[in-house]
């Protein structure tokens, strides 16, 4: 067991390597998760505030709303560049 931690005397190099990788990847995941939750929550608030007013249908509409966006014709890729 001690040999495992010792890494042949190179413990001071092997463990920090794994440690740095773990910390960076964990932090990236945490930041990503928070970004996602914040923006999705804000989106839900804004959509709730707008109510279910029927809108002119556009390709970028929120899937959460019950609006019948499925039946709208798919817009050409150029126009879909505007996410409105």
């Amino acid at each position, binding site marked *: 067991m001690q040999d*495992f931690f010792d890494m*042949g005397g190179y413990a001071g190099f*092997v463990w920090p390597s794994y440690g740095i990788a773990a910390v960076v990847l964990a932090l*990236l995941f945490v930041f990503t998760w928070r970004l*996602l939750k914040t*923006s999705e929550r804000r989106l839900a608030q804004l959509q709730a505030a707008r109510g279910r007013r029927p809108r002119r249908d556009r390709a970028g509409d929120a899937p959460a709303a019950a609006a019948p966006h499925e039946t709208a014709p798919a817009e050409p890729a150029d126009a879909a560049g505007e*996410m409105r």
Partner: protein
Amino acid sequence: MHRFANPNRFLKLANAILPWAAGATVILLLAGLYFSLVASPEDYQQGATVRIMYVHVPAAWMALFVYTAMAVASAVALIWKHPVSDLFAKAASPVGAAFTFIALATGAFWGKPMWGTWWVWDARLTSMLILFFLYLGHMALMNAFDDPQRGFRAAAVLALVGVVNVPIIKFSVDWWNTLHQPASVVRMDGPAIDPAMMTPLLLMAFAFKAYFVTVVLLRMRGEIAEAKVRAISMSQVHG
């Protein structure tokens, strides 16, 4: 491809893939770590420091792979104007930057005991550092403009210009004499790594790939939500 230019269709696909990608990441990481730290031999020459390879090399592979994917997405965005391509590029670059940083840092911790130095300005290390700066520049450009479209455009151009660095990194150890040794896996004569060491290497490589898919999809979901928030806010302002 054009089917998924529609962000909502893309979201449906992304949500379907996400649980699998996340699950695969966990399983592959656990297996990878077990093999890397426990169930693999030391190297005849480098001893236990070879275990650093199982983090360093997959991270370096991801650094190159992600940048290439970003460049392809940038070309698609510039030529076909797919909004999802732009979103992919924006989502991918922090992940690529993270992997590049990990490759550089673990490389330093590997170089010090084996080479005798934390850093040298040879062609391999220098070009990898340049890659890191390219990622940072890409992220900066994405966020530099009030109009997101201008950010997408500028970043796409940077991604395409910088992609010339990718073959330079890969072949740096062949084209110039460097302290960094030549390739051990992707080479003309086949891998120069014992099978017992290939296992942890490949497991960690796939684990990092699965992690990339998971995080990029989550980031793209976040970006799509952000864009909708912006759109609703703007339409409210304009009435």
